């Protein structure tokens, strides 16, 4: 569809010296970027490197403080997303900008020419989505769709405007490997049609696989432009982080000890129509073990975490045991007193109160389980501010939390640093059982490797660790054994060495037959 008239011009989009200041802080500092027609261009960088800010300026959501954007060689100022679309720039956001109350068709119609009728748009969207291998029903309400399907809406919506450049922000973070492969095929189709793609990611293997060129950002500055296929993951990571990323160090953790966390045929009915029911989940985690639970978002990970942590108790008191004690109906503080620790998925609003300081957040989590250390005066429960502040400082130091000021609010920390603090808050107690959900989601490579190392070290010191994650790289880095959750069913746990990526992918896609056989076998083994 896109004519290739721009052959005379080397670049579809050029950015020269683009700078964005927030107060005195330069989120983007003199950035140069060139995207050629028909190329898949990667934008690499850690969290907080300025990728999102740059992209928002290209899409007209933010206005640059200085610098120039050239579109097909002509200087343009993009003052609104509408103007970006008129130029031929489409965007698929990481956090979908969809309207849950509206249907798929209505969502798409909102970004198109108002003169085209809704029925025509729905028709076109359905046929386009089929052509690109992204099936969609225009009449469905977005509220009823899975994350993967929602992403398809975003992509189809961008494609319907026949863009010359499509910007994708971390598109594979919510997809199965198979779904990601499908997306890559779509991207190659777009490339073959002469469209350009700006692909934002911090997954190095993907970038190497599909991208023709990469621009690497660090601290708001470009640190390198390269052909990712000529680089090694280590050299790319070096450009992103500035120094070599500490490789996670995992020696043999030795023979596992006694069972510390034991779950036996636990079922849990969904609390809302959107929740997944947990069906007959069994697992046992021994001292010195890291059990990773893989799976695509929305297959019951959140629900599993909720019942393991005691946020929602289960009816069968004996279904969950921590260090031999039945805790099915015990609430979260009771479980913490038994030596368990929990790190939920959402940093803001669940693991931490954004508007409160780090020390307050520490106290909120541990006031009950570490009462003696932090509260004085018996029933009076007077806060010992000195002790709380000291513990906060200790955690920040151990986990290398970078912050401004002595005791800033949780919301002022970058995602990676807050996550390090939240994980450190639990590790500080030396929990004998630790359950973490998505420990490094949206966290930069440096912080991620620090957190993973801490999890392994904890297991090494004799604790049982459960890591619920969608990131397969992470799983292979930390796990001693791996189980896969799909539609609320948990597969048997396999030793990490015996599972291939393909096999996990199949389990994640919901190939239940083999899973069920395996779990029956597992139950039989447990019975002995």
């Amino acid at each position: 569809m896109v004519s290739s008239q721009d052959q005379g011009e080397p670049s579809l989009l050029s950015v020269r010296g683009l700078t964005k200041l927030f107060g005195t802080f330069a989120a983007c500092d003199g950035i140069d970027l060139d995207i050629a027609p028909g190329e898949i261009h990667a934008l690499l960088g850690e969290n907080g490197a300025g990728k999102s800010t740059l992209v928002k300026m290209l899409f007209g959501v933010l206005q640059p403080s200085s610098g120039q954007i050239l579109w097909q060689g002509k200087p343009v100022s993009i003052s609104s997303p509408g103007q970006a679309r008129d130029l031929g720039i489409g965007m698929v956001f990481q956090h979908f900008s969809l309207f849950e109350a509206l249907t798929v068709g209505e969502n798409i119609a909102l970004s198109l020419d108002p003169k085209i009728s809704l029925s025509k748009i729905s028709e076109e969207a359905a046929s386009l989505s089929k052509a690109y291998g992204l099936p969609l029903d225009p009449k469905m309400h977005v509220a009823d769709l899975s994350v993967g399907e929602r992403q398809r809406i975003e992509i189809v919506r961008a494609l319907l405007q026949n863009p010359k450049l499509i910007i994708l922000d971390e598109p594979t973070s919510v997809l199965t490997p198979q779904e990601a492969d499908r997306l890559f095929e779509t991207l190659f189709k777009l490339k073959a049609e002469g469209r350009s793609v700006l692909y934002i990611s911090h997954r190095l293997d993907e970038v190497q696989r599909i991208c023709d060129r990469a621009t690497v950002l660090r601290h708001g500055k470009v640190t390198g432009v390269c052909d990712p296929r000529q680089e090694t993951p280590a050299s790319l990571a070096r450009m992103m982080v500035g120094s070599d990323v500490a490789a996670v160090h995992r020696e043999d953790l030795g023979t596992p000890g006694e069972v510390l966390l034991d779950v036996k045929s636990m079922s849990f009915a969904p609390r809302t129509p959107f929740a997944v029911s947990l069906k007959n989940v069994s697992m046992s985690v021994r001292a010195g073990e890291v059990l990773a639970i893989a799976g695509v978002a929305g297959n019951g990970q959140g629900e599993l975490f909720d019942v393991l942590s005691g946020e929602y108790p289960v009816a069968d008191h004996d279904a969950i045991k921590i260090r031999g004690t039945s805790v099915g109906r015990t609430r979260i503080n009771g479980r913490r007193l038994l030596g368990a620790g929990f790190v939920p998925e959402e940093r803001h609003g669940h693991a931490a109160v954004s508007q409160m300081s780090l020390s307050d957040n520490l106290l909120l989590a541990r006031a009950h389980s570490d009462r003696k250390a932090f509260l004085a005066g018996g029933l009076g429960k007077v806060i010992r501010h000195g002790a709380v502040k000291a513990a906060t400082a200790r955690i920040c130091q151990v986990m290398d939390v970078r912050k401004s000021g002595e005791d800033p609010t949780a919301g002022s920390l970058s995602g990676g640093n807050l996550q390090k603090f939240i994980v450190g808050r639990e590790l500080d107690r030396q929990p004998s059982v630790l359950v973490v959900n998505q420990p490094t989601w949206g966290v930069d490579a440096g912080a991620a490797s620090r957190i993973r190392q801490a999890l392994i070290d904890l297991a090494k010191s004799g604790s049982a660790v459960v890591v619920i994650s969608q990131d397969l790289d992470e799983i292979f880095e930390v796990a001693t054994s791996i189980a896969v959750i799909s539609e609320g069913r948990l597969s048997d746990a396999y030793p990490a060495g015996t599972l291939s990526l393909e096999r996990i992918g199949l389990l994640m896609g919901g190939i239940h037959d083999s899973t069920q056989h395996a779990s029956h076998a597992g139950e039989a083994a447990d019975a002995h």
Partner: protein
Amino acid sequence: MFEAILLTVMTAATPLVIAAMGELVAERSGVLNLGVEGMMIMGAVCAFATAHMTGSPYLGILAGIGGGALFSLLFGFLTLTLVTNQVATGLALTILGLGVSGQLGESFVGLAGTKLQPIVVPVLSDIPFIGRVLFAQDLIFYLSIALIIGVNWFLFRSRTGLKMRAVGDNHGSAHALGINVVRTRYLAVLFGGACAGLAGAQLSLVYTPQWVENMSAGRGWIALALVVFASWRPWRILAGGYLFGAVTIGQLHAQAFGVGIPSQFLSALPYAATIVVLVIISHNRRTTLINTPASLGKPFVPDR
């Protein structure tokens, strides 16, 4: 007898339906305007004064609409431009409206009003039973019906209405799509004010054609409850409005006939019914998600 009761029910229901339709549009765009009572009473006093001075109830209607809209503009300026808290501002608007209208209307107390005369539709009004009820009504009644049809079409059929619902559902995403959130909300608030003003005009020109201080008598609050009762659906406002209107009238008749139901119970009924509806719709998360404007009452500040 029955026809007479039905006619009084319709007269009582019309201002509720009109004010609720206006508030529905404002809330669908994400603005919670608790100042309906204040805008309504401003409409009532402007309509009465203009009709009394010019002798034309139709100019009165226009003045009522204008008074309500102007008053809502104040609300819009405070909540949308200066980004004040919507709940607090709405409450203040109601208190201010009651006070200002009392001041403006002081010299009109006890004066004879100009009643809006019914427009009898020939032929149709001769239909037995329903003819007199439906086709021998005043202009404001016809407008109330047109309003429901129009708003329903606008919200669910027109592209502008779709944009308005998008703004109410997720203003951040709407902004990212290039929709002017603040302008959309200004227009919705203005429409809500105009409707509240029209409802006020009905009170002082049709329902009781005279000016009495505080004559809106809590109808603005019933209209607010009605929007929730109708779970933000235009046709349900019609049903709910007539139900609440019937309760109001029933309360008067019950008193007249000495029926043993305390009148306080009947006047509390609309609110109790609203609570029941709230419980029912929030029980099912899906219906809540699809019907309730998700960004209702949340201030919008574009991040620049």
